[in-house]
């Protein structure tokens, strides 16, 4: 187990390194740089001066090596777009994205899993209704879902549209800030959660339907265990394996989805930051965002794999084979 973990961690680090380096290189190769808009109004000498003062005229290799040297000491360079160290900017925005992702995952789990258990074990009209809703749910990707929810919110005024807080946030007390945040979270989180909840419902439904046909469930019923207990205590734990496996896959789509939702609802998260950094050609910020994205993805996948191994001892880590 220890070696498996170490290998996975190593691979994750490699991924973060490659992704951020590639992002840096590609952005550097891209036409235009962060000084380009200002240079439109400056003379050639002034422009060259500006570039030199921003360090844009350095050759790629020394620039890259000094950046790499900084990264080892957790110094991710300075964002020229925001005039702030990249590290603190990233921490702030990554936290915002994490808030969104966690609420979305929670909502998807709390809606999808119970409904899946229900539709997988009961027959009747309610099941058909839930199935139909869930089919619609998987067909509403975050882009469509967030646009629809924004439309709904703007029309009805039930929820604030866009942003993470309504005011600057600084002059608010903690409680007021939290209440404000709680009003802003549901819309983007729901847009992300709808397709995930539907996917979970369908998979859980399939998994528990096949698990409840296993002999040991019949045996528990024969021993006199009542139906709902035999489903929840005997069939459900066994059906969890494919469901937990899905979480690993979902983290990737959560990531892509949250980018779209952040753009549509002006949520100040990592995706938006990356987009702004790319447009402005803010080299170190692009690299930092790419690194954080890759890190989240690698960490999420690892976490879901560990959870899988923990709940199902049959999962081998490649050593016992």
């Amino acid at each position: 187990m220890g070696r498996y973990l170490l290998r996975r961690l190593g691979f994750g680090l490699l991924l973060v390194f490659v992704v951020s380096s590639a992002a840096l290189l590609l952005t550097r190769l891209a036409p235009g740089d962060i000084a380009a808009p200002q240079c439109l109004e400056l003379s050639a000498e002034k422009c060259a001066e500006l570039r030199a003062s921003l360090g844009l005229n350095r050759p790629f290799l020394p620039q890259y090596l000094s950046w790499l040297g900084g990264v080892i000491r957790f110094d991710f360079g300075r964002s020229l777009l925001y005039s702030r160290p990249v590290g603190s900017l990233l921490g702030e925005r990554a936290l915002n994205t994490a808030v969104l992702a966690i609420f979305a995952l929670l909502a998807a789990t709390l809606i999808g899993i119970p409904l899946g258990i229900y539709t997988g074990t009961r027959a009747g009209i309610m099941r058909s209704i839930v199935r139909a809703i869930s089919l619609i749910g998987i067909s509403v990707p975050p882009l469509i879902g967030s646009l629809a929810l924004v439309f709904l919110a703007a029309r009805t005024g039930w929820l604030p549209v866009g942003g993470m807080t309504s005011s600057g946030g600084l002059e608010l007390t903690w409680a007021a800030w939290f209440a404000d945040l709680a009003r802003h979270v549901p819309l983007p989180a729901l847009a992300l959660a709808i397709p995930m909840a539907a996917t979970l419902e369908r998979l859980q439904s399939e998994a528990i339907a096949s698990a409840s046909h296993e002999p040991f469930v019949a045996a528990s019923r024969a021993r006199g265990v009542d139906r709902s207990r035999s489903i929840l205590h005997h069939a459900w734990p066994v059906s969890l394996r494919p469901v937990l496996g899905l979480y690993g896959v979902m983290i990737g789509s959560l990531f892509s989805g949250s980018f779209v939702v952040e753009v549509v609802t002006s949520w100040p998260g990592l995706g938006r930051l990356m987009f702004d950094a790319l447009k402005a050609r803010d080299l170190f910020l692009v690299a930092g965002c790419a690194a954080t994205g890759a890190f989240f993805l690698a960490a999420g996948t690892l976490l879901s794999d560990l959870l899988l191994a923990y709940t199902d001892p049959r999962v081998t880590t490649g050593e016992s084979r």
Partner: protein
Amino acid sequence: MTRRAAIMLVALALFALLAPWLAPYQAGEAFSGFLHAPPMRPHLDGLSPVVHPLVLADRLEQRFEIDSSRTVKLPWIERDAAAPVFLLGADDFGRDVLSRLLYGARTSIGLALVATLGAVLIGALAGAWAGYRGGWIDEAIMRVADFVLVLPVIYVVLVLRAVLPLVLPPSTVFLLVSWIFVLVGWPFVAKGVRAIVAVERNREYVQAAQSLGAGPLRILAVHLIPACGGHLLVQATLLLPAFILAEATLSFIGLGFPDPIASWGTMLAGAGNYNAVARFPWTLAPAVAIFAIVLSTNLLTSQPSPRNR
């Protein structure tokens, strides 16, 4: 259900294909007096369907009133340049949403189809080659595929598109974006194909073909890749809506097609702020179209298993 979904997909593809004949107006045709005109409802006047024309009531508020004293024939029957008919409303430039939806279907579905075909083709070739040859080729191809699969896809697409010049001619954008999609899409196909080919190549029919003197190319093309047909079809139906959505996302944030080109993404980009969305919901028509495509592909690919019916 599966049949109905297939019919719906074919119908949508036909709409896209026949856009120039079905669309009442050109995609870029703007009627300056009709910015954000609401949809008009056709009714029957005798035997011919007609609408009441719109009159601008307040230019500042962009408010229109229905002039019920007059009627205008539908543009398919008779075109009246002074009184255009917007069955699905008009967008922020006064362009007909229905026409743009049809032309946009061409761009969006066309791009997704090209990218899907490319990804399936490259994925099938790479996967089959890896599965058939085995050894270090297999190892190398699959490592690359695994690596691409764990990348944060949206960032890869963003970076690849953003580092290229932002303003490009539409045909270049089409090629470029489809190549980017192929690049992130092929591993999904390749992994399955490799697994199938690695098993199938040891089957008797392959050995029979080998003993009859068939070369590796022939075996791959005639025997092994056709054996993956089902997998390829499933992957194609999964990739197609994903690519349509990816195009919409790219164009929505301004990294896809430039505005005068009608694509579902550029149309959504025009619709995409809170104020506009609330006041002019008909500009969200492409969102409904994308939903229809995703829904029908979901109906095609995912049915509950017999045990769970």
